[in-house]
């Protein structure tokens, strides 16, 4: 048998407009913890999904136990002894722990008849191994998120996995729970299981892992023994690249304060808390943070889409309570949401309807009885021209447009309301490179015309290229602001990973 249990050789994977993985190779030794690191979008999750059979790779081969294999789907991967604990859990909430663990491979008395006794006793056994004392028949909905995570791990153990992939397993765990997880990992390792551990948390990585592989822009940068690395070295390797001239020239000059958010705290104790910041006229404020930093949640809270426990918003000196989007809109706020398909476009409606839908109140005539379509059409045409939206006609359904053009339609929807403050959550996600530049230009032009922009992005390069100032969040808190020469990836990464030590308080709240 070779020294490696798993070898990934030359794996490439493209999505429309993006090369997600470019000739990536990785070698995994049995009985080790192998950390996989990189920025958001570096390709870690994509690589793991290729290995786990969720995606089909374009090129490359997987050698498992010295033998080239083709993993067709997640079920195939499980059967071969490769298990994955996903970052976003996919539990069946209304079924028991046992059924979740044995879903798709129930032990049977006769074909088609489930052996519940065996399923429950087997479940009890694996639950003990991960330190959960729950009844196997307990419904998953009664568990906390971290307990569900342990159930996922129990599931991986129960298939007798030789390789366990853990994608940010600690993102929803408290410090105490992390310790428990680490002891489980060490136990698995001593039993010869290889673990691929994806995380952003440097200290965790350096504590638990034996080897560290670093990825950047879909490429494998290097693999090193963990004891040879320091946090600084990892960060440099993760971000080290040249800034190209990818961004338009900015001519905006930040002026007086337009919007002030003070002590904003979510009703969810694990979400954003005590957030305060000020936004100037004509300023582009970047918001950075890792997955789970609660940036989107904060912006949705400000826009009235999520409940808040405390905090105030002040727009041009007037403080107001924002409990629904209408309140925000009437105070000249606009929100470009993160998930275009879920909360942005009206897929079955035309481009024209998508542009006009949020500003119809301005186009009523005959005592509000009917809409003035002449003026609406003028609005639609001028917006299509102004933002150079490429559409065959205003009557084309928006779902047939490219992502970039859909995004421009939504931007123009808000422009029709003439907002002062534009919150843009991942405005360039899922958009190809050329269209990205167009969106950047729109953002720069808006700022130059005196609009204020809050721009969330997971691509640090983009924020550094566009923002006047960057607010960095970590785990629901603002951990700092950077501007000028401080606006570099090392500094941002350091703030974005500044997790609260001594999570005792949180532990108590969760219980």
């Amino acid at each position, binding site marked *: 048998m070779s020294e490696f249990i798993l070898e990934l050789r030359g794996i490439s994977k493209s999505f429309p407009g993006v090369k997600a993985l470019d000739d990536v190779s990785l070698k995994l030794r049995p009985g080790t913890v192998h950390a996989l690191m990189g920025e958001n979008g570096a390709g870690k999750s994509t690589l793991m999904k290729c290995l786990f059979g969720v995606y089909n790779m374009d090129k490359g081969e997987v050698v498992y136990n010295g033998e080239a294999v083709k993993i067709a789907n997640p079920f195939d991967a499980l059967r071969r002894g490769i298990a994955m604990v996903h970052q976003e859990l996919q539990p069946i909430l209304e079924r028991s722990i046992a059924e979740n663990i044995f879903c798709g491979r129930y032990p049977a008395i006769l074909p088609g008849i489930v052996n519940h006794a065996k399923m429950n006793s087997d479940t009890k056994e694996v639950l003990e191994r991960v330190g959960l004392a729950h009844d196997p028949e307990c419904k998953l909905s009664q568990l906390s998120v971290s307990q569900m995570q342990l159930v996922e791990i129990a599931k991986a153990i129960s298939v007798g996995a030789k390789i366990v992939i853990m994608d940010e397993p600690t993102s929803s765990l408290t410090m105490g729970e992390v310790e428990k997880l680490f002891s489980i990992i060490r136990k698995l390792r001593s039993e010869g299981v290889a673990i691929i551990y994806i995380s952003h948390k440097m200290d965790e990585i350096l504590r638990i892992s034996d080897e560290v592989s670093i990825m950047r822009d879909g490429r494998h940068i290097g693999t090193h023994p963990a004891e040879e690395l320091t946090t600084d070295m990892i960060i440099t390797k993760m971000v080290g690249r040249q800034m190209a001239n990818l961004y338009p020239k900015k001519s905006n000059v930040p002026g007086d304060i337009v919007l002030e958010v003070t002590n904003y705290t979510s009703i969810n104790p694990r979400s954003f808390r005590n957030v305060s910041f000020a936004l100037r006229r004509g300023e582009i404020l970047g918001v950075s943070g890792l997955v789970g930093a609660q940036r989107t949640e904060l912006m949705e809270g400000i826009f009235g*889409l999520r409940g808040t426990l405390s905090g105030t918003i002040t727009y041009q000196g007037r403080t107001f309570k924002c409990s629904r989007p209408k309140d925000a809109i009437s105070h000249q706020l606009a929100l470009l*949401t993160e998930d275009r398909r879920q909360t942005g476009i009206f897929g079955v409606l035309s481009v024209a309807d998508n542009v006009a839908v949020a500003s*119809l109140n301005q186009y009523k005539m005959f005592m509000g009885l009917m809409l003035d379509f002449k003026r609406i059409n003028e609005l639609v045409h001028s917006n299509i021209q102004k933002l150079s939206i490429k559409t065959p006609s205003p009557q084309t359904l928006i779902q047939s447009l490219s992502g970039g053009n859909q995004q421009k339609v939504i931007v123009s929807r808000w422009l029709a309301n003439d907002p002062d403050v534009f919150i843009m959550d991942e405005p360039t996600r899922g958009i190809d490179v050329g269209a990205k530049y167009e969106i950047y230009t729109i953002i720069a032009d808006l700022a130059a015309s005196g609009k204020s922009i809050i721009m969330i992005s997971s691509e640090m390069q983009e924020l550094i290229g566009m923002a006047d100032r960057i607010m960095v969040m970590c785990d629901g808190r603002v951990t700092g602001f950077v501007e000028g020469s401080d606006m570099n990836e090392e500094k941002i990464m350091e703030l974005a990973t500044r997790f609260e030590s001594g999570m005792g308080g949180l532990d108590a709240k969760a219980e």
Partner: protein
Amino acid sequence: MPKQNESSKDAVLNFLMNNAVIILLVAASIAVGIMRPTFFSVYNAKNLISNTAVRFIIALGVSGCLISKGTDLSAGRAVGLAACLAATFLQRADYTGKVYPNIGDINIAVVLLGIIVVITIFGVFNGIIIAYLKVPPFITTLGTQTIIYGICLVFTGAQPIGGLRADYTDIASGSIFGVTYLPYLGLIAAICGFIMWFTYNKTSHGKYMYAIGGNESAAEVSGINTKATKIIIYATAGLLYGIAGFLLGAKAGGTSVNAGFGYELEAIAGCTIGGVSTNGGVGRISGILVGVLVFELLKIAMVFMGVEPSYTYIVQGLVIVTAVAIDMRKYAAKK
């Protein structure tokens, strides 16, 4: 020029696909007309228009619910209650079986208005439950359906109501200038159709309705008052059921608690055949008219062909499934 040929062939095929329901409808009518010449008589035209008129008004009400990704199962029972209310208050003074012998002749417009108010209240009730308590429309209106039926039973004592006033039944039997193929019912349905077309296409409420059906979360982010819009949709539906029930009573010349039974399903079927998507956000008034017409034409055609009534249900069911399957293909081809 093989390419051009191909594209023109595609265009023809597309045209056939997009209008399959109408084409089949016309073809079937011609076939029945050839075999049974009286099918094209003036009397039959009036019959078809009158039948279609009432069903069309109900379908208009249901369509708003469907387009906003809801449904309304209470439509049929609401129509039935409206018909019973109308008949009760519009009986002849000299009729021996009068429900309320002591009340005199009430102005017919007052009765209509009263019915509209009552049935609209049930629509508002549906809307409030759906918008504020977030009960799924299917369940909400299932409940309302049963409630309305119960009220109707209590109100009528399960007795049939007859002896209607001539000025009331004339609404259903009369025609404009006495021209047989221009029945009042057709005119009323046309007016309702026009007002709803205007509402759906020319007002902000209409735009909001399509937006909610297309993507409710996006509608909320855009600042649309989704709750108010939904309540207006269900209230409007109630208003239309009130009118339809009033007309149904006049047309039948007498009613019972069974009036309107199952009409909601026919209305949903008609809308769907006419291209209203049950996934929300899609649907046109012209399509709804075609959908309802298909159904009524089918029924009359089967009568003319001498098909035994029991068999007509089997055919109707098959038509619903086939028509919608053809419609789905239309969208599937575009993906």
